[in-house]
């Protein structure tokens, strides 16, 4: 195989020009998907984290089991179960609905663990001070505890968000036309790897800045923890 063969198999400008419109479509879908599932996951996480501050044994164990269940189940398994399984129970779900439910459950559990750690890192006195001025539990949580909690675990939150955005690629398995799905379509029509390569490059350009930022934050965190 010559270098030219290699170039034309992976970096063919001709193919790229043909595939570009549908790749762009895919990119738009990936971005929309991320804008849907990140807030959904965060919502699930906040619910779990706030519930976990109610120290009641009847709540604590089911909550822990719930979180561990969705941390143990690979997200793709969950997604396939929802998409391919629920119709047998008489519940037809679209690809978008399946992805929304799956990510709410899966990434919610991860965000929940992170936020719980964040809440636990806020000194007890903060809640007491807030309550002593007459703020309700919910107000104290919303205005005083959560903002500090989020700040304390910001690197972990960003890191998880990066993983969630990468994870949207599994939506291709349920034929949701996001970036990877479109790239596969283009590849199977052209018998050429260029579209997949292009998708990889797009992901990299999109996410590299986040990775850089994270690696700085994480180094500082580990060094500071000694």
């Amino acid at each position, binding site marked *: 195989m010559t270098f030219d063969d290699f170039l034309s198999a992976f970096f063919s400008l001709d193919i790229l020009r043909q595939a570009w419109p549908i790749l762009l479509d895919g990119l738009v879908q990936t971005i929309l998907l991320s804008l849907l599932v990140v807030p959904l996951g965060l919502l699930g996480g906040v619910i779990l984290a706030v519930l976990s501050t109610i120290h009641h044994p009847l709540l604590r164990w089911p909550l822990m089991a719930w979180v561990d269940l969705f941390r*143990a189940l690979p997200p793709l398994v969950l997604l396939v179960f929802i998409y391919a399984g629920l119709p047998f*129970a008489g519940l037809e779900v679209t690809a978008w609905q399946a992805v929304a439910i799956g990510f709410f459950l899966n990434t919610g559990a991860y965000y929940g663990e992170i936020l719980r750690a964040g809440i636990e890192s806020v000194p007890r006195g903060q809640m007491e001070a807030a309550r002593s001025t007459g703020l309700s539990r919910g107000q104290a949580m919303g205005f005083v505890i959560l903002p500090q909690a989020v700040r304390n675990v910001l690197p972990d939150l960003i890191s998880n968000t990066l993983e969630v955005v990468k994870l949207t690629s599994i939506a291709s398995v349920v034929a949701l036309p996001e970036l990877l799905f479109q790239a596969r379509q283009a590849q199977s029509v052209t018998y050429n790897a260029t579209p997949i390569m292009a998708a990889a490059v797009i992901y990299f350009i999109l996410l590299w800045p986040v990775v850089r930022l994270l690696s700085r934050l994480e180094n500082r965190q580990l060094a500071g923890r000694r």
Partner: protein
Amino acid sequence: MSNWDRFLDSFFNLKVAAEYLPKIIEGFWLTVLLALCIVVTGLVAGLLLAVLRSFGIRVLNWLIIFAVDLFRALPPLVLITLLFFGLPAAGFSLTGFASTWLALSLVLMAFAEEIFWAGITAVPKGQWEAARSTGLTFLQTLRMVVLPQALRMTIPPLTNRTIAITKGTALASVVAVQEILGAAQAGVSFSFNPTPLTLGALAYLVLFVPVVLLGRWIETRFAWKR
């Protein structure tokens, strides 16, 4: 037939379960094998890169940092797709198993390098100086003084990351590997019944719930003193 009976008949159909259980068990061991391969090669490669980085050769370090960033930014499924569907265009093909193994090893390598490196840099300079002043060589210092301290620090983040990446073995189903999810999906399409998916989900729980609990235990056991 009541709704409840129909539900049981769909998701917990004993006849279907008995028929496909052997396939799922085969898939289970394939998943275990794949996971072990990934953990070993990924962690070893990550440690190797971190040690190489500590030599401080500038051009080499740029390459290492770039490789790490690349595999942190790319979704694992994109990598698997590229290796499995893309490489044939260059004239040689990998099996689905090999594609997944290689792709997830590269991803784990990237995360592990980052964590190992952070651990190494978190060991105070005085440790290096003290060891070198007693006549230990660079490598002796690294192996006997720095790494033991660094590794202890890295255990909790490394465990969690390894678990998360190992769960990606389910992605192998996309490239026709008959691991748990692959076997379960095949079962569903043959039997027109989602019970194999239920079995598959249970198999993942059997595999990963202990691992997640281990991760929790390690996190408290090696908790950072704040």
